[in-house]
């Protein structure tokens, strides 16, 4: 029986005390490999893409980076709090339109979006400044919505986040003079080089990591495991949830801004159920409970989607061409997701992070 020895309170091994670090706070040092390795993966993908130099492939990888940002944003709230949110894409929508407002040529804006305030009509910022502002705007809006939402918990909170998405979508689909309603807002400067997207994805990964190991993130993860015990330890759960909601809202906004710059066009329906489903399923397949799960979920599922598209287009085998029927892509993706979740209900990473060293437990 190991129990008898495990609580031997007198075994104060003296040399163990001697080498004891002036404790504090090994957390950052012990976990830094996770964001480093994930970033390395993203940089490697970017470099390979750059060397291949194919235009369509470049665009595909840009989409992957944008989705990495979005899924990492989802992870910050959903992963750490354990509360499912169906509404985060609303903040992506806010970020994308904010980026559009800040970067479209003033002459064009006056015609297409005449309802914007004068100062905004006259503004034309470089895309990266616009992305930072869009991200802040989305974060502040998340803070405002979150103040109301974070009092709720469980399924009530999830449904309320969905209501936020529906609300934002309704506003952006109807406010003709400011958002162009359901018609596309065009003229957003398109950024085709891959590096800004890679940098933003890496930044998102590091923000998510820093939040998760912060006191606030720690308290939130504790509350996810055992809410009563966390409250009894002095954790103010709604407050910590709100912090995560705002941080994740800002990351979603950043993703939205970059998404706008990757295609040059925004419509409200781009940021609705389709994107919500895609990003959530990437997070769930990768593993909701870990940052690595989010990133790896995006990369793997994107690769899978790409491979299926490629098969749909047809692959030459010898003299003949092998192609799967159109539409099989969605079906195959759905089946693969179900199989993964049946075999690994907590996702591919199963709440674990990628790291160089195994945790030392004696």
């Amino acid at each position, binding site marked *: 029986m190991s129990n008898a020895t495990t*609580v031997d309170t007198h075994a104060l091994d003296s040399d163990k005390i001697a080498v004891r670090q002036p404790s504090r706070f090994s957390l950052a040092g012990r976990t830094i490999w996770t964001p480093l390795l994930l970033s390395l993966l993203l940089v490697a993908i970017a470099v390979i893409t750059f060397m291949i130099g194919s235009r369509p492939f470049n665009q595909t990888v840009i989409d992957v980076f944008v989705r990495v940002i979005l899924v990492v944003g989802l992870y910050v709230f959903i992963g750490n709090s354990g509360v499912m949110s169906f509404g985060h894409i609303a903040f992506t929508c806010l970020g994308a339109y904010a980026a559009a407002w800040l970067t479209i040529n003033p002459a064009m804006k006056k015609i297409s979006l005449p309802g914007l305030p004068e100062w905004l009509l006259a503004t034309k910022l470089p895309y990266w400044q616009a992305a930072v502002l869009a991200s802040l705007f989305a974060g502040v809006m998340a803070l405002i919505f979150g103040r109301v939402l974070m009092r709720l918990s469980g399924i009530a909170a999830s449904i309320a986040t969905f209501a936020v998405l529906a609300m934002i979508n309704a506003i952006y689909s109807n406010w003709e003079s400011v958002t162009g309603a359901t018609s596309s807002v065009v003229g957003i400067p398109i950024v085709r080089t891959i590096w800004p997207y890679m940098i933003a994805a890496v930044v998102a990964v590091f923000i998510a990591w820093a939040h998760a190991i912060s*006191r606030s993130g720690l308290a939130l993860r504790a509350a*996810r495991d055992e809410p009563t015990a966390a409250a009894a330890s002095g954790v103010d759960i709604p407050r910590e949830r709100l912090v995560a909601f705002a941080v994740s809202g800002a990351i979603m906004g950043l993703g939205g801004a970059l998404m706008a710059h990757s295609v040059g066009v925004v419509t409200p329906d781009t940021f609705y159920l389709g994107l919500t489903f895609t990003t959530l399923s990437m997070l769930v397949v990768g593993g909701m409970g870990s940052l690595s799960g989010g990133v790896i979920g995006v990369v793997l599922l994107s690769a899978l989607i790409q491979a299926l598209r490629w098969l749909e287009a047809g692959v030459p085998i010898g003299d003949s061409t092998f192609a799967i029927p159109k539409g099989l892509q969605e079906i195959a993706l759905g089946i693969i997701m179900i199989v993964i979740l049946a075999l690994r209900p907590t996702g591919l990473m199963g709440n674990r992070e990628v790291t160089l060293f195994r945790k030392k*437990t004696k």
Partner: protein
Amino acid sequence: MSLLDVSDIVIRYGRLTAVRGVSFSLNEGDILFITGPNGAGKSSLLRAIAGVTPIVGGSISLDGKSLAGLAPEDIARLGLSMVPEGRHVFGSLSVEENLLVGTGMHVGKNGWRARVASDLEAVYDTFPILRERRNGQAGLLSGGQQQMLVIGRALMTNPRLIAIDEPSLGLAPNITDQVYERLMALRAQRGLTLLIVEQSSTRAVMTGGRMVLMRGGQIVLEGDAREVGTGDQIQAAYFGYEDH
């Protein structure tokens, strides 16, 4: 003035009254055992004191300050730390992370970093096994280790009073002995006040201190644990025999 004053508490779950008019007080450094059979209202009482369960009547004050309407986290900040029943460790966090949860409340105070570090060392000194397992996942600890971890976690908020719900639940007797030995040592070192819920009075008799016996939401017997717990009345009170 006493540290904790509980007066005439009533707790209801819908139409069911779980606790009907319980009063007691605790002085600094006291040990009070709340014992009684299943459904006596012991856990409800403890949860109400920690602010987790609302009360519909009576009052609770800590150090003369009323706890009415305070959230559990605020009560924890005032120095009353509860260890809920069933050893709820934060299973996906490491041992050290478990201990650091809740220390956010110190942030901003003078020298809080040093204080958290020294609190951490103090817990590790009390429970050396936790230092050994500091980077291990808390969910993988044995039952006894988890009990030590939740007590250690409660200590991190620097409480004056710890309220523990059934520390012996599901533990082998020799492990329970060790848990109690540590609790008594903590009381001696820190002048910690202990409020302990246990089903059986055996522990109370072994440990000493004061004891109340609850049944049907009321206190039916109280006094010195060794006297009450070994007296003739205890069985009748525990099982509810009426002899008049």
